[in-house]
């Protein structure tokens, strides 16, 4: 009976109930204790004083919420006391915020996220993953081909600040020097951290722009891979294909994969809004946005890995074979994790 404290009411309450004239006010007085108790719990939670609530209070919150919600339903049919109805409506809404608020702990969410939710979200947007992949290949190709036709295109894709010594006409030695021999350099960690910060901002942008029906996302993907194509062309011209492959692959398999996923997530939102199918546009956008958000949380984590690989790995590992092995290993790991690991975590929020 602990769930219904009002039923344990002593003589005092019964006397008070006798004194009221209206049936609906009697109804109210019989339940007021539950209402007040819920209000107390809700107020404390809103003020962030969860520490002052006992476990029992927290357990009772959903029960009291349903009790008060049913009081509201009954009161609407039997009572004309506007103030009490308004109070109940506001109390039920406040409790609803808490009962149906974000309830998972960070730890619990991470466990579900790594335990299958992330890879499932990636698989669920596979058409966009393929489109984004095709776009990136096309962008690389376009960058390369334009540079083959006219080397001036190079500076359209690679800004002079970024290019540094890597300009058309540079000698093979100069280019090679840029790829190797940074083992003893300082500030690797700073380099890694700033790479991560920059890349994450770009991919979050890539995702967010999917909102405009995906068009800016497409442009961003093509533009960035055209730069890649232009640089590949430059190194190819000096016979450094193998070396540039290793230099890019060690972090690139992770970083480019992350950018690919970010683009795919953006496209997914854009596509769902443009072609919502049987859902409303708003409903489709919301469903796609939530799926894409999971992918994006993973993208940020992948970029942390990529930043570390680029900042430390590439500088410390000066041998192309090892670079290729690390890069290939990372790629195999991501592919296996996303497409072979098909566990559905228990207690998923979305079916």
């Amino acid at each position, binding site marked *: 009976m602990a769930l219904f404290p009002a039923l344990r009411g002593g003589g005092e309450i019964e006397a008070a109930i006798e*004194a009221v*004239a209206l049936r609906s*006010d009697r109804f109210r*007085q019989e339940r007021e204790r539950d209402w007040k108790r819920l209000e107390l719990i809700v107020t404390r939670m809103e003020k962030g004083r969860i520490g002052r609530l006992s476990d029992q209070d927290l357990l009772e919150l959903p029960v009291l919420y349903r009790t008060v919600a049913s009081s509201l339903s009954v009161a609407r049919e039997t009572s*004309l006391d506007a103030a009490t109805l308004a109070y109940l409506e506001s109390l039920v809404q406040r409790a609803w915020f808490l009962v149906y608020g974000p309830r*998972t702990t960070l730890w619990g969410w991470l466990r579900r996220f790594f335990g299958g939710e992330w890879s499932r979200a990636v698989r669920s947007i596979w058409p966009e993953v393929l489109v984004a992949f095709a776009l990136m290949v096309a962008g690389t190709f376009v960058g390369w081909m334009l540079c083959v036709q006219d080397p001036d295109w190079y500076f359209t894709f690679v800004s002079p600040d970024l290019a540094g010594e890597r300009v058309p006409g540079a000698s093979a030695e100069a280019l090679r020097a840029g790829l190797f021999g940074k083992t003893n350099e300082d500030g690797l960690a700073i380099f890694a951290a700033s790479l991560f910060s920059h890349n994450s901002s770009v991919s979050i942008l890539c995702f967010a722009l999917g909102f405009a029906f995906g068009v800016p996302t497409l442009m961003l993907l093509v533009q960035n891979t055209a730069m890649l194509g232009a640089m590949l062309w430059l190194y190819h011209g000096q016979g450094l294909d193998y070396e540039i492959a290793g230099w890019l692959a060690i972090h690139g398999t992770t970083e480019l994969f992350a950018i690919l996923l970010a683009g795919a997530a953006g496209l997914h939102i854009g596509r769902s809004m443009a072609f919502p199918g049987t859902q409303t546009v708003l409903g489709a956008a919301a469903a796609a*946005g939530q799926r894409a958000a999971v992918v*994006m949380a993973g993208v940020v984590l992948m970029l942390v890995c990529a930043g570390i690989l680029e900042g430390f790995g590439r500088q410390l590992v000066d041998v192309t074979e090892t670079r290729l092995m690390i890069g290939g290993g990372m790629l195999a790991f991501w592919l296996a994790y996303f497409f072979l690991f098909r566990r559905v975590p228990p207690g998923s929020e*979305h079916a």
Partner: protein
Amino acid sequence: MNVTVSARKDPRRVLITPEGIALPIKLASRGSRFGALLIDLLIIAASIIAVTLALVFIARGVAPDLFNKVGKDDAQIPAAIEFLIIVYIVISFLFRYGYFLFFELGPRGATPGKRMTGIRIAARDGGRLSTEMVLARNLVRDIEITLPLAALFSLGSDESLSKWPMAAWLLVFALFPFFNRDRLRAGDLIAGTWVLEAPRKKLEAAMSTGQAAATGTSYTTGVSYKFGDDELAIYGEYELQTLERVLREDRNEAMLAVHEAICRKLGWSPGTGDERAFLEAYYTQLRARLEAGMRMGKRKADKFAHGGG
């Protein structure tokens, strides 16, 4: 979506909880949302500045001559300074992207700015606000705040008009809440959320506990007010609620006016000095009659409506 109100400017909506209860809710005004955002951005800016100052202070302690060497090629960065710079980069990133996530996923479900302005986020469908929703709505902030601001600043320094189309396009995102009825910003749209006013109402006293209300007998004069069926049948629920408001506000002039109006309608000659007892008695008996009608499935909306017993 459970929208019953058609008027574009009306902030009231009805939300159906998973239990099937219709709750009247109120959308947060764009002003209070903007205020909340400003407060949050100020907190973020202040925190980043504080962290920067603290790190610079520590850096001076670790390597007093560091700042004289900046820009020289042979300058070796001490390991401790390197660590501080990493801390700085990571903390700035976390403040920029983690601040909103941290607070909106927390037990109080709102950032400090939102708490101060009394608003909260909620799932549009009335169901649970999931982690994914909060993630989605906050990942889009970049194109809503950072980019439009950057575009606006770049306009000032640029004489040519080439950046105007881009800026206009970005402003569409920033001003998105003005272009739809539910005041959704881009992030709300793709997350399936909206922003509501957090209600706060106190439980008022029950009306029928006073002596006049309970028994119809005035405490001051001893007069007993009993109204007949036809005397109560002239009013409906609307008038009852007006009367309730007057009684709860307890302002003398209002009670005098209402007292006089009711007496005129009843054909009584209004006395003075005992208005409250009269109104309490009339309120209670009218409510008892209307509620009895309700239980029988008969309702009377106002004095013009027929029925209600």
